[in-house]
């Protein structure tokens, strides 16, 4: 499900921010969640066990090509914020 490219890299940075022991476990679970049969297995478990599927989905919908058609343009939000900060002299 996770595309190669920028969103894969941002997910990797996200995982790398976790405590060391947790990173290995999360990578293993993410590998499982990437496979259709693994994902099906995880979906039978408790809500927290579904976190890897959720993280893959977060990375996927963080991709501007996917989020823009859904009405969300992060770059435009940031550009407007920057403009307003400058105009109003905020930090």
């Amino acid at each position: 499900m996770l595309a190669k490219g920028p969103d894969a890299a941002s997910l990797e940075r996200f995982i790398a921010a976790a405590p060391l022991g947790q990173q290995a476990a999360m990578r293993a679970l993410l590998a499982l969640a990437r496979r259709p049969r693994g994902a099906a297995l995880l979906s039978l478990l408790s809500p927290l066990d579904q976190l890897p599927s959720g993280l893959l989905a977060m990375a996927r919908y963080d991709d501007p090509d996917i989020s823009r058609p859904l009405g969300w343009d992060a770059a435009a939000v940031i550009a407007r914020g920057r403009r307003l900060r400058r105009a109003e002299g905020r930090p």
Partner: protein
Amino acid sequence: MSARLAQRLQAEVCVIGSGAGGAPVAAELAEGGVRVALLEEGAWHDPDHFTARSPEMLARLYREGGQTFTLGRPPIMLPLGRGIGGTTLINSGTCFRTPAHVLARWQREYGIEVSEDSLRPCFERVEEAISVDTVTPELAGGNAAVVRRGAERLRWSYGYLRRNARGCVGSGVCTLGCPTSAKQHTGITYIPRAQRAGAQILTGAQAKRVLIERGRAAGVLARLEGGATLEVRAPTVVVAAGTINTPLLLKRSGLAGRSGQLGRNLSLHPATAVFARMDEIVDMARGVPQSLYIDHFAEQGIMLEGSAGPPAYAALALPLTGARHAEAMRAFRQLAVFGLMVSDSSRGSVAALGSRPLIRYDMNAADLQRFRDGLVRMRELFSAAGAREIYLPLPAGVDPEMARRRDLKLMAFHPLGTARAHARPDQGVVDGSLAVHGLRGLYIADGSVLPSSLGVNPQLTIMALATRLALSLLEGDGSV
């Protein structure tokens, strides 16, 4: 920690942490003419580098990338901020004064002086400092409009939230770093004030040990980025490292353990979110994500509050998988979401596991029942609002009435209580004036001192108590 001593600093007060507790103390004291050094483990996060992209901002602005969990039944995700502004940098900006019944309970059960009258001037002072104002219906956006409609049809009491924002344009990413610097977190309010008044603010400085000499605070040993050691000599130390890290620091220092309460009494105010698919376009990411509350069930310990975000947020939080997840996400513009928080009577603990916190928390039967009741209410709310489909955060086929602990998908944003205030030294870590029992010159001013769950968001309570501490130190009660 490196044995290399890189720097030695002299101050009158050393403050540890720049969040809701530490920043107001530093600013008020510095403006009162006190020589302050503030140590913050994290960095100053430049808004020019905010991207509104979830994975990236979580990794940069949150402690452990926001991937801190409690161990227990059920495990709970517990995100915390790390950097100038602490958790206020990435919070939703909601501002509640401490409910009167909570203050009354603290006076009655913990013997601490926290009357509404005594705290009112501190609340007013904080609210002015961080520009607290009520959200307008226009800024609240479509998500709040859906929920408001449901609440009105059910005749439930609701209101627009008060927030610390100025010039907010409803860009919907408060928890990913406000791109307009509209949210008045402590990093852009109190910290610049402290700096202007001469306080030294050190980032990348992790307090390792509080120094005590002859029963009195003497300073702090910190580790700087790169491994060098900094010693701040100060006869007064205010610890404000937050509910999870304050007990770890004090335990490392061999302090404040006499009551047996340090690291215990952890309340979390656990939360979950319910999604619904509407017929109308909602665009949940437009508007203030946390803009409306429903307090109709507050007496039962159930508070409903807004929570929303961009597609990446929804994709992570939606309680669906596979094709159903994809189908719901295709209709993202029609999705509405609202949060449910439980004022918990369960209590957990924080201990050290190497340099990391081991956070234990098991939910008791009463809180589980509150979640069941709350989820039933949320279903009623979205049905009344006209939802086409409602997505409860439970495994398929589990009714809210029958939900077990392990069925719940929980997060918590308001950890409190691990160095609780109590008038009696055998029952609390600090007294009502936030002084650590049995030691001179050592104070705690963060969420860890609040002895119970508030039932509402805690930043204003923490800031008001921190302000009261600073003012009393300036008056000489605490002998700065």
